[in-house]
């Protein structure tokens, strides 16, 4: 056969373009991507094991920004570094090839349950926490479904560090736009330097994509509210409105986890049944107790926070205190919101509210919140209750002990929660842990009513 044409074609491929040792060890099998001046190949060694090779031309050193980063990182959610080869023109880095499906394909081929979505995002949080909490934090900057591989056992890996960078103080803005438009936050367009919150933004968009099939907000698709709140807090326009640490995102996901919520719903249902049984046996006594609470007697706690109740509580607080704190009632409350309410609504002294008991983080008359939290930390239901009760009557939560109890809460908090449960203050707040501003309004309004009736 006459294959002169083929010879001519093949003559364009010069093995000497690639480092010799690389060429002798691996065959190039597929081109996975040819982007930003970086060629990514699927290669195969002589035993048939596959790897990923990235080729950087030396004349464009700026293209290799992400290249050095993965060589020193070892985590099961990241492709292992194998070796680097170079000649005068080119550096080739070989890494583990992770068998599996990219998350975009995986998501298009099957319905991912809410549970699985949360699992995937929590795994991603772990990988990002590993990257962000190094001495020199690594920011991936291109979190998207195409860069996440789902292995057959359901574990995930994050790939493609082409545009990752190590965070350094002093650079005010990123000058070059990389990243993928739908998933990239405003600062990646050059508003300010990217840091960990850049990845947190993309994580929020990813969560929305997995839940709704779209990266854009769509008001006609209802997202389970605790998750919607996480998306909102991840994707604030300004980095300072977002979670500051990916570990907070994981914690929030854990708490919003539908599985946990289901168990909780079952517990609440069981408690309701137990409550009915108690009613039968101790009718009048319980009836008196219930009428002492600010709620209609026949109301059994609903599984999802009742929007009407939120609206009513926010209105009550606004009328009583003329405040705008609760305006955005669906966003996650933080410790700063609680402190602000204590100072502005209840007239507490600022130093009292912000004072930190340096010696020992225990309940103490001299400090209102003795634990020294950052204002930006998300607010736990238990702490809101603690503050709400303490502002009316510190003796309820007085210094019980300096030690944490078995549940990980401080005794004063436990006492406050027990008090709140007894009085019905927590009716309608069924979300464990982090709460919204609406929930905070409910807790404060209900506590106010309990103490007014006393």
């Amino acid at each position, binding site marked *: 056969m006459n294959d002169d044409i083929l010879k001519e074609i093949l*003559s*364009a491929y010069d093995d000497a373009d690639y480092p010799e040792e690389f060429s002798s060890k691996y065959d190039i099998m597929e*081109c996975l991507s040819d982007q930003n001046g970086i060629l990514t190949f699927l290669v195969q060694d002589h035993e048939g094991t596959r790897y990923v090779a990235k080729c950087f031309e030396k004349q464009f050193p700026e293209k290799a920004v992400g290249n050095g980063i993965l060589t020193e990182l070892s985590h099961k959610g990241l492709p292992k570094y194998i070796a680097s080869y170079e000649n005068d023109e080119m550096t080739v880095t070989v890494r583990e090839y992770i068998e599996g499906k990219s998350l975009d394909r995986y998501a298009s081929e099957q319905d991912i349950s809410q549970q699985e979505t949360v699992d995937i995002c929590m795994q991603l949080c772990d990988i990002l926490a590993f990257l962000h909490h190094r001495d020199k934090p690594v920011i991936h900057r291109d979190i998207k479904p195409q860069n996440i591989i789902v292995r057959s056992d359901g574990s995930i890996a994050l790939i493609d560090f082409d545009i990752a960078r190590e965070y350094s103080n002093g650079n005010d803005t990123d000058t070059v736009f990389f990243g993928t438009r739908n998933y990239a936050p405003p600062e990646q367009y050059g508003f300010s330097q990217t840091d960990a919150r850049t990845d947190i933004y993309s994580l929020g968009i990813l969560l929305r994509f997995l839940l709704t099939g779209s990266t854009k907000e769509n008001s006609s698709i209802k997202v389970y509210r605790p998750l919607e709140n996480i998306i909102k807090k991840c994707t604030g326009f300004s980095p300072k409105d977002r979670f500051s640490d990916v570990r907070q995102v994981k914690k929030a996901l854990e708490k919003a986890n539908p599985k946990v919520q289901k168990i909780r719903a079952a517990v609440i249902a069981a408690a309701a049944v137990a409550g009915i049984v108690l009613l039968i046996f101790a009718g009048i006594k319980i009836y008196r107790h219930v009428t002492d609470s600010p709620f209609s007697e026949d109301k059994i706690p609903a599984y999802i926070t009742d929007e009407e109740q939120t609206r009513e509580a926010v209105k009550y607080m606004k009328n009583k205190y003329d405040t705008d704190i609760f305006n955005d009632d669906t966003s996650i409350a933080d410790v700063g919101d609680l402190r602000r309410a204590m100072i502005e609504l209840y007239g507490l002294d600022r130093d009292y509210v912000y004072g930190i008991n340096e010696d020992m983080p225990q309940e103490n008359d001299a400090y209102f919140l003795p634990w020294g939290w950052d204002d930006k930390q998300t607010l736990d239901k238990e702490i809101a209750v603690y503050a709400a009760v303490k502002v009316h009557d510190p003796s309820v939560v007085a210094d019980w002990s300096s030690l944490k109890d078995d549940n990980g809460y401080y005794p004063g908090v436990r006492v406050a929660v027990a008090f709140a449960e007894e009085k019905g203050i927590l009716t309608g707040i069924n979300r464990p842990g982090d709460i919204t501003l609406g929930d905070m309004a409910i807790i404060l309004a209900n506590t106010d009513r309990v103490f007014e009736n006393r």
Partner: protein
Amino acid sequence: MYGVNSMNEKATTQELWGKLFTMRSVEEYLDKTGESRFPLFSEYITALCDAKGENEESVIKRGNIESSYGHRLFKGTRNPSRDTVIQLAFGLELDSAGAQQLLKVARVTALHPRVKRDAVIAYCLYHHKDFMETQELLYKNNLPTIGGGRSE
């Protein structure tokens, strides 16, 4: 291996590449069938087979695919590897543009001009060489053969 290339030679090769790596759009197929969604791989190869008036067996044989595995591909109970998709392209006697389309429907990577092995495969499809001739050319050029280990 063939010495330094002049710019001229590179330009000619570029032209050739242009032809070899063209992709026929999947939309063309969709227009023809009146379907609006991206086809499943099994539907797509069945449609191509029907259009040629061939039976599955001869396509599978021509692509040198193990028979029971081949039928499972047509049934849609197996997802093909990239090499198997290429074998089916030979089995269906597709040209290089048709093979690119087939690779796209299978959601695997396209034949790429930067990959020497792909260039040989695209060339062979373009010139309607059969599967065994292609394997021979790959082997001769010290490139991994299709569906097997490396040629040594």
